[in-house]
């Protein structure tokens, strides 16, 4: 059986920025290994749907999920107390494919930043470019440094790091890297895909879509992709969440 639902003990669930929480779950080593960029489907008591949250980290027997309060479900998650058991279906989806010997630019925008941490931990001295709206939303900077990454911080309003977008930084530094991995809002991903195309760099992007089953059965989290010249519907949960940026039909 490929899938299993586990009751994981909540170790901590702290607010680390404005409306952003860091949930740490006991995930004993020897559990199913997590690939960077995969996600966990978290059961929220009283809700009809699980909440898909990208894996921020999965080292040292701890499954770390950094999430933002976006609605009722994530609000309930933020109120879960250490010691309680959390019902988690993980790991799901196809994550980032990173190879040794390559230099990567790992780009995260807002709540798209967390999955880049575990990705950074798999890469050799990656360039991590993180973008946030303002200083109140900045997260994980020290974690990236500890993971051996060079981190660049940008905010839209210049209240922390340099003022501007992650794509501005990417344009300046893209010559240094072999490949780009990114997660964040769709307009950002579209802009990054464009820059990568311009400079001829491979680009993997992690997409988000409203999801139900999480395993590819219900077909709700559709994304249009181009394969062999034909446009087809694939699904974020099963075929993604990471896709080759060249194949994604934005706005499809």
């Amino acid at each position, binding site marked *: *059986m*490929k*899938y*299993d*639902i586990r009751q994981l003990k909540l170790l901590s669930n702290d607010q680390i920025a404005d409306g952003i929480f860091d949930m740490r779950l006991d995930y004993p080593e020897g559990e199913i290994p997590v690939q960077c960029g995969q996600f966990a489907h978290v*059961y929220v008591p009283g*809700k*009809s*749907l*699980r909440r898909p949250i990208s894996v921020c980290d999965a080292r040292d027997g701890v499954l770390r999920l950094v999430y933002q309060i976006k609605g009722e*479900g994530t609000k309930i998650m933020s109120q879960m107390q250490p010691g309680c058991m959390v019902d988690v*279906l993980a790991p799901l989806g196809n994550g980032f494919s990173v190879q040794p010997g390559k230099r990567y630019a790992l780009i995260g925008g807002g709540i798209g930043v967390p999955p880049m941490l575990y990705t950074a931990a798999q890469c050799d001295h990656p360039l991590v470019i993180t973008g946030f709206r303002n200083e109140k939303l900045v997260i994980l900077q020290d974690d990236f440094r500890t993971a051996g990454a060079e981190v660049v911080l940008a905010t839209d309003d210049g209240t922390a790091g340099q003022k501007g977008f992650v794509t501005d930084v990417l344009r300046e530094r893209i010559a240094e890297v072999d490949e780009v991995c990114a997660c964040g809002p769709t307009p950002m991903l579209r802009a990054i895909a464009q820059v990568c195309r311009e400079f001829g760099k491979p680009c993997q992007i992690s997409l988000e*879509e*409203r*999801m*139900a*089953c*999480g*395993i*590819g*059965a*219900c*077909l*709700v*989290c*559709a*994304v*249009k992709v181009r394969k062999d010249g034909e*446009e*087809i*519907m694939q699904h974020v949960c*099963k075929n993604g969440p990471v896709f080759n940026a060249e194949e994604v039909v934005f706005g*499809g």
Partner: protein
Amino acid sequence: MADLSVKVAGVSFANPLIAASGTFGFGREFNEFYPLSTLGGISCKGITLRRRDGNPPPRIAETPSGILNAVGLQNPGVDVFINEDLPWLKQQNTTIIANIAGNTIEEYCQMAEKLSETDVDMIELNISCPNVKSGGVQFGTSCESVGQITREVRAHCQKPLVVKLSPNVTDIASIAQSAEANGADAISMINTLTGMKIDIRTRRPIIRNNTGGLSGAAVFPVAVRMVWQVSKAVSIPIIGMGGITTWEDAVEMLIAGATALQIGTVLFSDPYAPIKINEGLNRFLDENGIQSVTELTGTVKPW
């Protein structure tokens, strides 16, 4: 250990719990949780004559005790289903219902003919999908149209035929009677209730299709009421569905008049729900000295 097996229109199900169409794909994914033989059967994702890509996303929104969906019948088409999915499904030792939808009555008939030559155990006529522009529910909302499509498909169908009814109608009992009179072997009900959810900040509907079908616990009392009404109006068996979440819901739906059950939305929060419901059902039967689950069907004592 009570007998959980049921028969609908001569087709046997190992237990009354059937995965509802559209929530379970063609079974391959859930087979990674438990063997599909755990289920009484599977009603496969609705299939059409040709491949359909479905609606643009978002296709789902969460609502109080339920969800709205508008997938729009994304599927690979009947031929791919028959050639690539059905042979695998038939090896899984569970009962297979093919759910078919079309733009025209002719398309339904063509699919019924193709599927009649296969190993599917039953055909479910989907005339109740609220999320496609043509076909779907347009055939399911009047006695005349239900009667006509049932009659015509019946003439092309060599398999037991189940007609899946929409709750978005004024008088579901008379529609069920029309299906029965025109050759339906069973009724399955209810499909989703058309609903809408709007983001108050953007004033945009959450679902790109604007409206979607409501399912989940929110619709359960409506489903129970309708199954009860239809069970009094027809003599063919009913596969009851609509928001069944717990074993108590399953018992209630059987008592209301269902012979078998389909479960869907609960699978999204708890994929193991069918196993838990079967366990609870079995315990309830044993505790009450009931030998067979079939003894529950239609035993409601209305005031």
